[in-house]
């Protein structure tokens, strides 16, 4: 499988909806491996009732492979009811702070009619859960929750069938609640019903889910299911895992963000008692019983590296990105409507701008970490990643093992934000553990995380719009170099469009980030719409509404405008800005109230209106919206990786500023709960309109530069 973060050179994307940094294909065949694995898991659980859940649409997808559906079915989840009545649901999704361990359990509890605490989720352990491409794209809620829900609904039907058979009564007369089936006089617990006779079932294609109007568990806001472990410090992140006889590993790395090993002097490290030096081609690492000793030994190794000579600096980057269009990659097909050149020629006014978007770092507070343990030629690795099966493939490839010999286990992880798709830390720990013949833990330092994890792509975006004499948009030309294609379409009614993404050769390693390029593309689109409305002397909300037909987008825009009191700021010296958009099936509008302090912007207040269909966990959605908003503040106001001569110049926590308490404005979140619409994800989209809301608000107080982070041109307006 292709690593997710080459450096923009693979150019996999052939359509705009799929972000190249997240594009993943299912393996072409599953054979019987999954079913066998399932039966092993099932046997290990000691009988009971088990249900296999197949992803909806898998049959159609498998059709293109020409096989029959039963041979290539995509098993998406397993559900088990034990003889003790406990319910276990197995999914390949990972918990990275987005709270799906709780919200997915809600779907199961709802459909099985059991209390939430009767449900346990086994997540992201490749030996115990079916294949899953990864936790990204805001797909857990729209895709995995219905899969688990249908598995639970099927289990409910099987339990009723069994009770009906046992009592010789019609199933219509039976009811099921609180983990029991009853016919009014007799009652049996789930455990009693499944005892003694193992039972397996498959989800029927027509099984119905409980309508949102009848939800009793979903739509409520239970506390995080394992919350107590987090406030007591007992939750074991990867960084906290200990194995018997475990040693600690440390890598010797280039002195810049990249480099090729030229020579190594490891004599001093080899002379240190208890230290093992591991060298393999360009790989240099050490292992010791003590983490501090391992770090001292790594520091004692003298290595020289050949640095890329021609890399730009963070200042000359943007010309580089426009010049160095990725060679060899398939160019993305532009989105074209009407005749944009003719429309621009005929336009009464045209508006042209060029925006710059820097690289930013994810800075997950738990850095990359992995614990690797070999038993013979079988490998188990605990690590933080959003793609356990992808990391399993990387390990299998690196060590030339069949995937069946590799197990990847992902403990609930100290956040990711799109930044943990790859498995380099897992490979490092496994390589060291192989040499040491002991389990080895590798924890990246913060400096390593800055320099060698991948960044949110930088980009250049050029936009040209044409407006007719009546003030209607007639032309929209939009080119994005390097940052990505997510959210590149415009939701506004414009007859003539040309929209294109141009992948570039990136000097920094780059990859997924919360919301992907939708943040960059929304920023530029909304800032440009604001500029046009401003120059035309038209209200920015009215201008948008007159070009928007999508009622869901109009609804969030109108809700946010009303809540912030558009168009009047609440105090003198302040200014309002607004932006809206839709991405990954959800809708967001953000409004900001700002004031000015020298060349920088102070955000006083932010209002967000967000709609993601039927809300599963109201407080969880709110938490995600607030979090995305705060993360968006960083990119809007101060986050940018700076570099020169092959080195980062701000790759430390002291130099790379992330949002802190003092930066947080008054936050007001309006959730539009649409029980009539399917639930979609909420972790990403609320970030996309933060920067343009702030940037357009700032324009009311001075001249704002066309680049992120947002700042004023030094002279006052």
């Amino acid at each position, binding site marked *: 499988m292709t690593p997710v973060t080459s450096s923009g050179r693979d150019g996999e994307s052939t359509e705009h909806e799929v972000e190249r940094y997240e594009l993943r294909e299912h393996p072409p065949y599953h054979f019987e491996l999954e079913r066998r694995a399932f039966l092993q898991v099932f046997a290990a659980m000691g009988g009971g009732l088990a249900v296999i859940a197949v992803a909806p649409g898998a049959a159609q997808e498998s059709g293109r492979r020409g096989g029959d559906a039963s041979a290539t079915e995509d098993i998406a989840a397993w559900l088990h009811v034990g003889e003790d009545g406990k319910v276990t649901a197995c999914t390949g999704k990972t918990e*990275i*702070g*987005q*709270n799906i361990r709780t919200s997915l359990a809600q779907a199961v509890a709802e459909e099985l009619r059991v209390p939430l605490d009767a449900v346990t989720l086994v997540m992201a352990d490749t030996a115990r859960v079916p294949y899953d491409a990864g936790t990204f794209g805001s797909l857990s809620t729209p895709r995995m929750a219905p899969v688990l829900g249908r598995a639970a609904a099927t289990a409910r039907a099987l339990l009723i069938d069994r009770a009906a058979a046992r009592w010789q009564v019609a199933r219509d007369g039976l009811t099921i609640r609180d983990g029991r089936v009853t016919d009014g006089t007799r009652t049996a617990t789930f455990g009693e019903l499944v005892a003694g006779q193992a039972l397996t079932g498959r989800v029927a294609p027509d099984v119905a889910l409980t309508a949102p109007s009848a939800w009793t568990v979903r739509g409520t806001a239970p*506390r*995080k299911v394992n*919350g*107590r*472990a*987090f*406030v*007591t*410090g*007992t*939750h*074991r*992140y990867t*960084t*906290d895992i*200990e194995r018997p006889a475990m040693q*600690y590993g440390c890598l010797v790395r280039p002195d810049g963000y990249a480099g090729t090993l030229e020579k190594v002097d490891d004599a001093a490290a080899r002379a240190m008692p208890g230290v093992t030096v591991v060298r393999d081609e360009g790989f240099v690492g050490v292992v010791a019983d*003590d*983490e*501090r000793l391992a770090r001292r030994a790594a520091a004692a190794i003298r290595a020289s590296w050949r640095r890329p000579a021609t890399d730009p600096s963070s200042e000359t980057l943007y010309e580089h990105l426009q010049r160095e269009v990725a060679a060899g990659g398939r160019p993305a097909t532009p989105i074209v409507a009407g005749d944009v050149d003719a429309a621009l020629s005929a336009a009464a006014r045209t508006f042209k701008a060029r925006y710059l978007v820097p690289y930013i770092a994810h*800075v*997950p*507070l*738990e*850095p990359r970490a992995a614990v690797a343990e070999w038993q013979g030629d079988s490998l188990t690795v605990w690590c933080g990643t959003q793609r356990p099966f992808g990391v399993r493939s990387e390990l299998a490839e690196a060590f030339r093992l069949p995937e069946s010999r590799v197990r990847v286990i992902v403990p*609930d*992880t*100290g*956040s990711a*934000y799109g930044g943990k798709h790859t498995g380099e830390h897992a490979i490092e720990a496994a390589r060291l553990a192989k040499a040491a013949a002991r389990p080895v833990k590798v*924890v990246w*330092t*913060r*400096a390593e995380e800055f320099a060698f994890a991948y960044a949110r792509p930088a980009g250049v975006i050029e936009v040209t719009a044409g407006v007719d004499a009546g003030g209607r948009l007639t032309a929209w030309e939009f080119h994005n170099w390097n940052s990505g294609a997510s959210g590149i379409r415009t939701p506004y009614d414009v007859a003539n469009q040309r929209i294109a993404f141009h992948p570039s050769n990136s000097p920094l390693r780059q990859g997924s980030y919360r919301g992907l390029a939708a943040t960059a593309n929304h920023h530029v689109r909304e800032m440009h719409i604001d500029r046009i409305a401003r120059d035309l002397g038209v209200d920015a909300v009215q201008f948008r509404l007159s070009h928007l037909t999508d009622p869901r987008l109009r609804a969030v825009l109108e809700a946010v405008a009303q809540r912030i009191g558009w168009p009047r700021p609440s105090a003198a010296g302040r200014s309002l800005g607004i932006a809206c958009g839709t991405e990954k099936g959800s809708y967001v509008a953000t409004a900001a109230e700002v004031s000015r302090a020298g060349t920088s912007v102070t955000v006083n207040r932010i209002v967000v209106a967000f709609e993601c269909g039927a809300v599963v966990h109201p*407080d969880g959605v709110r*938490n*995600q919206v*607030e*979090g*995305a*908003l*705060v*993360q968006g*503040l960083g990119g809007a106001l101060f986050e940018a990786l700076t570099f020169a001569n092959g080195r980062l110049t701000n790759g*430390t*926590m*002291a130099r790379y500023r*992330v*949002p*802190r*308490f*003092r930066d*947080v404005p008054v*936050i007001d979140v309006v959730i539009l709960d649409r029980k009539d619409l399917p639930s979609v994800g909420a972790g990403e989209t609320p970030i996309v309109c933060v920067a343009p809301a702030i940037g357009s608000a700032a324009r009311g107080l001075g001249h704002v530069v066309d680049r992120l982070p947002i700042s004023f041109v030094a002279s006052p307006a």
Partner: protein
Amino acid sequence: MPISLRVNGRTHEVQAEPGDMLLSVLRQDLALTGSKYGCGEGQCGACTVLVDGQPVRSCVTRVSTLGIKPITTIEGLADGDRLHAVQEAFLEAEAFQCGYCTPGMIMATVALLRATPSPTDADIVKALQGNVCRCGTYARIMQAVRLAARRMRPSDSSGGAR
């Protein structure tokens, strides 16, 4: 060299170099992994513990500087199954997402409320400014701190102060 540390009411003998950092000793030698490594620069607060009741960044605190001063980590906060009021408040306000910053946030809050039982919002921001929550749950943490302060004040009998 052997070094004695008084952690959560118990005295521990560990083998460490004088320049070794407290966080490393807590996590590796004493298996107290509730205190987290976030940056190693004293900039993110994930490693916050109390020394003599004061919040310190254990990732930049050398073990040789501690003597027998009492050290409290997140593991020393609850009384058996009974959570500290600050822990309860974080749970109730759902003041976390991934939870990695939570132990440090809680320890910094305990120190704040000992020194300032009725903090203003400005006091809270000042006390917690050195603690990063990359998931951005700051508003909820503020809420949790206010809730804990309310519960812990002696005049308020409704809470589980201790």
